[in-house]
């Protein structure tokens, strides 16, 4: 038999109203107390039924079409974790990529794809959007399945002390570019992870923003490409 205090915490828990340490302790208790676990499950079923009170609403048909276009075959769990190796291989390509003709880089990429080594890696070259010399340039290696990538830049001046370079991903599913974070130029490359799921990375851009970056781009675009 549960006391009222425990029932109260369970009720708050199902609404996500327990925070921090209190939530953690309740989770532990729930795992070790089958009666409490059953009570929480019942309360969750009751709470979830409240969704019906909002009234059903039909989503636009194109939303389903978009979703079905985005789902990919499930990767078997036993597949080896090849990402670090593949990204390393990608970087090896990129290390010499700046001096190459783009077509040569693409041919190398296609050859690698045929071996299924980089099949999920997308390469984008970014060109300078600003006047002056030397021209900045960047290459992005993007893994859509893992939602992470690496950017390598060259000939980019150091930003002022109160500024940072910030990377953005253009995905047609979103009205605004997706924030992929600020990066620093110490060794000319940086890894990134966009803050929203990217379904189709059509373009990449680098802007110059205030230190720490902006949630939405405000500063000038200095690099752009796909």
């Amino acid at each position, binding site marked *: 038999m549960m006391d009222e205090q425990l029932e109260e915490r369970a009720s708050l828990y199902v609404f996500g109203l327990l925070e921090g340490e209190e939530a953690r302790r309740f989770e532990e208790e729930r795992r070790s107390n089958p009666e409490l676990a059953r009570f929480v499950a019942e309360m969750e079923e009751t709470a979830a039924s*409240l969704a019906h009170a909002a*009234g059903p609403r039909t989503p636009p048909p194109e939303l389903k079409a978009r979703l079905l276009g985005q789902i990919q075959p499930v990767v078997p769990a036993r597949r080896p974790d090849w990402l670090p190796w593949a990204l390393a291989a990608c970087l090896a390509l990129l290390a010499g990529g700046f001096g190459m003709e783009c077509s040569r880089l693409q041919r190398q990429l296609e050859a690698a794809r045929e071996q299924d080594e980089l099949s999920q890696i997308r390469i984008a070259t970014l060109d300078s959007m600003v006047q002056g010399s030397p021209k900045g340039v960047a290459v992005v290696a993007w893994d859509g399945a893992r939602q992470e990538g690496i950017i390598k830049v060259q000939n980019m001046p150091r930003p002022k002390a109160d500024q940072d370079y910030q990377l953005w991903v253009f995905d047609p599913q979103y009205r605004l570019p997706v924030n992929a974070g600020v990066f620093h130029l110490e060794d000319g490359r940086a890894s990134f992870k966009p803050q929203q799921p990217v*379904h189709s990375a059509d373009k990449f851009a680098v802007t110059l923003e205030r230190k720490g970056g902006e949630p939405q781009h405000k500063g000038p675009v200095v690099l752009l490409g796909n």
Partner: protein
Amino acid sequence: MSDDSELLERIKAGDESAFSEFYDRMAPLLFGLVFKILNDAREAEDVIQEGFLMVWKKAASYDSARSSPSTWVTMIFRHKAIDRLRARERRSRGMERAALEPTACHDEGEAVLQNEVGAAVRAALERLPGEQRDAIVAAFFSGMTQLEISEKTGAPLGTVKARIRRGLLKLREHLGGL
């Protein structure tokens, strides 16, 4: 016709037709829910898209011993919508809406579909004492913390907690075998 649990099992195995059927069954309920929380059709569409992609990728994490498929997805989508509501810093508007329109169906020119379950849940909510109903609706739809609900309603924190507990227990009783 497959039941929801069977559909989730097939989705786990990468069956796109099962995903399509599961979407058709769940999307109206979930779109209605996230729209009520966010009051913004575009943002609600984003949440639906992200949420169903998560269902596709994480179906294997569904535990049938812990909840029904409907409860599992409802709590996932609610959580995502509330995260977004908090992130966009329009919480105060959300609070007003949820507190003022506890059981209202938005329509905004668009016909709102009614169903028996929705009517039963709304009726069950109506049977709760007003202060318990308000506390439950604020807790589920607004994204407010316990303290914010307390400040909003002017009731002491302990009273808010007690109202949520009593309201949820009564709601379970009223919904019976729904």
